[in-house]
């Protein structure tokens, strides 16, 4: 008889996101916000640039969140958040958490300069990139977060994306900020824990959330969590943390990684890939996994 194990609910019951939002069926980004706010609590102000979430929240005069939102310009998630932080400090509110919440386009591409500026200044904000790997809000155009091999409307099947996904974590780690983490909507306990942890740290914190997009990935809405889980189990999107740019910790040690093909085959955006192309992607995933293990001292 094995030792009795008790399951405890570590995810707060409080909800800061209401039904009635405008997300698509199976949207990873909406699940990400719901979980992030469970970790951060109500004393949070969020800056949302142009991205799916600029729409998901709901049109004026409605909002699906129970926290204040500043809808800011596309490239200004970080700089707006830095301003809000400074403004709050000057009016005597040093408690409220300031969250920048941007998509991969607003983070990897157009907002990268402002993000780098905020990180270099170590401004006291939590910057979250919910990554659905393309410009989904404008109708699935490639971003520098789109993985190699993927179809998008600007990387058509005959000329699918040939470039690798930008290593945003590497870029952020090079800034030496106090806290960086990856998180996945398939691992809610881990994700909520990371947002709670980030809330208690001062300085720039960066959380990269993997958020599947059925509309853009041509996957089934009911497969969103499954895909997010497979991304972790294949080693495509490992769950790890980097503290002060130096201390790497692997949060989920996947003993036997599943083949990347299992993850790719559930998505129409990879349907055109031939076996040898999948093999190349597998090689790349393996190499990245090995690099991360090495960083983590494993």
């Amino acid at each position, binding site marked *: 008889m094995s030792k009795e194990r008790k399951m405890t609910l570590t995810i707060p019951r409080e909800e800061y996101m209401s039904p009635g939002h405008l997300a698509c069926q199976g949207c990873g980004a909406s699940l990400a916000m719901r979980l992030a706010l469970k970790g951060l609590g*109500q*004393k*949070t*102000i969020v*800056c949302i640039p142009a991205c799916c979430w*600029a*729409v998901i*929240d*709901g*049109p*004026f*005069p*409605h*909002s699906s*969140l*129970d*926290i*204040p*939102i*500043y*809808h*800011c*310009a596309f*490239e*200004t998630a*970080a*700089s*707006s*958040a*830095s*301003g*809000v*932080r*400074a*403004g*709050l*400090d*000057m*009016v005597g*509110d040093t408690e*409220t958490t300031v969250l920048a919440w941007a998509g991969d386009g607003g983070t990897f591409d157009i907002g990268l*300069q*402002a993000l*780098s*500026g905020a990180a*270099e*200044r170590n*401004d006291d904000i939590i910057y979250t990139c919910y990554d659905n790997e393309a410009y989904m809000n404008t109708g699935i155009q490639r971003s520098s977060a789109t993985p190699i091999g993927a179809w998008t409307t600007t990387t058509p099947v005959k000329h699918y994306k040939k470039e690798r996904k930008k290593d945003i974590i590497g870029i952020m780690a090079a800034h030496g900020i106090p806290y960086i983490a990856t998180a996945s909507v398939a691992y809610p306990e881990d994700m909520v824990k990371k947002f709670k942890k980030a809330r208690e740290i001062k300085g720039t914190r960066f959380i990269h959330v993997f958020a599947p997009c059925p509309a853009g990935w041509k996957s089934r809405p009911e497969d969103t969590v499954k895909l997010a889980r497979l991304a972790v189990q294949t080693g495509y999107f490992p769950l790890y943390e980097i503290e002060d740019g130096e201390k790497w910790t692997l949060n989920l040690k996947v003993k036997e990684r599943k083949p990347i093909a299992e993850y790719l085959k559930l998505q129409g955006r990879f349907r055109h890939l031939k076996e040898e192309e999948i093999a190349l992607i597998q090689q790349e995933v393996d190499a990245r996994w090995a690099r991360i293990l090495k960083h983590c001292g494993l």
Partner: protein
Amino acid sequence: MKKVIMGNHALSYGAMLSRAQVIAAYPITPQTQVVELLSEMCADGTLNAKFIKVESEHSAMAACLGASLAGARTFTATSAQGLALMHEMLHWASGGRMPVVMGNINRAMAPGWSIWADQNDSLSERDTGWIQFYCSSNQEVLDTVIQAFKVSEKLMIPSMIILDAFALSHTYEVVEIPEQARVDQFLPPFNPPWRLTPADPHAFGGLTSPDHYMELRYKLQKDMEKVPALVEETGKEYEKLFGRYLGQVEEYLCADAELVFVTSGTAGYTARVAVDELRQKGIKAGNLRIKLFRPFPFEKVRAILSRVPKVAVLDRNISYGHHGIFYQEVKSALYGQPSSPLVFGFIAGLGGRDITRDSFQEIAEYTLSKNRAEEEIVWIGVKK
């Protein structure tokens, strides 16, 4: 207290006396001294403010807007290319009703690279919904900053305070620095009608359907229309405390004039000297210097110019394919009035070429000798 300071430092002192709480800025010639002095003031505690040393002007304005929406009084300064980079955020400031006050040093736009005075940078931002003040002395710069905060915060519309590169930004003049306690009496702390706070959560600037958008813009225009009267009222209140009046325009010997120059910025200062010289020669000249450009001071301009036979508008800017921008605006203000003067348009001083007393003599000779302008644009001092 009187101090000999440069125009850029007049902006810094204005922001300090207004107790700006958040400053976010990026350096650009010829604005640098504005932010250098402010960062010193923040570092040594003369000014209790957060200075965010951003990586671009775009981020400077973005950070100011975040801070403003959080309830802080915010200030920044820029010039030319920096202002152009901010363009998107200028719309954000007025559309979001965030009363940031910004100094802009008028500098010509590249290419070719120029660091010298010309108004095409700020006038390209004419339609962004910012209040625009053009200054001609360092004292006016300082006084305008303090009054701009009051006007902006009352109407929740941002203000731009504009001074010519070098001719004012780097020119040292005697400036009366008001006492802090008296400025505090004039300008209470910023207390916006709405702000970002978890105690009363709202979403600002979200997706706005055609059912709502137009009303937001209508309200912005309606509040813009209140600016001229408020500038007068605020000016009178300021005058009571400090003895100097700002107002929308500066009228110099226009009452009996046969020819009135319409000017702005430091050229308006030179024009007054030219008017004195012309009057010594027996020519009844006058000068109308436009201080408040947006919103345009229609009533003042109409009242002063409708009784004048000839008007010569001097532009240190050009709208390519049209005319000088002040010329367009003056003609637009006078169109359809029962009595209108003959209006001539002159362009001078682009890219920092000097506008001298002689420039005005040339303008006066042309205007007085003709019954209509022979060219749509009369260029002064250009090598054709």
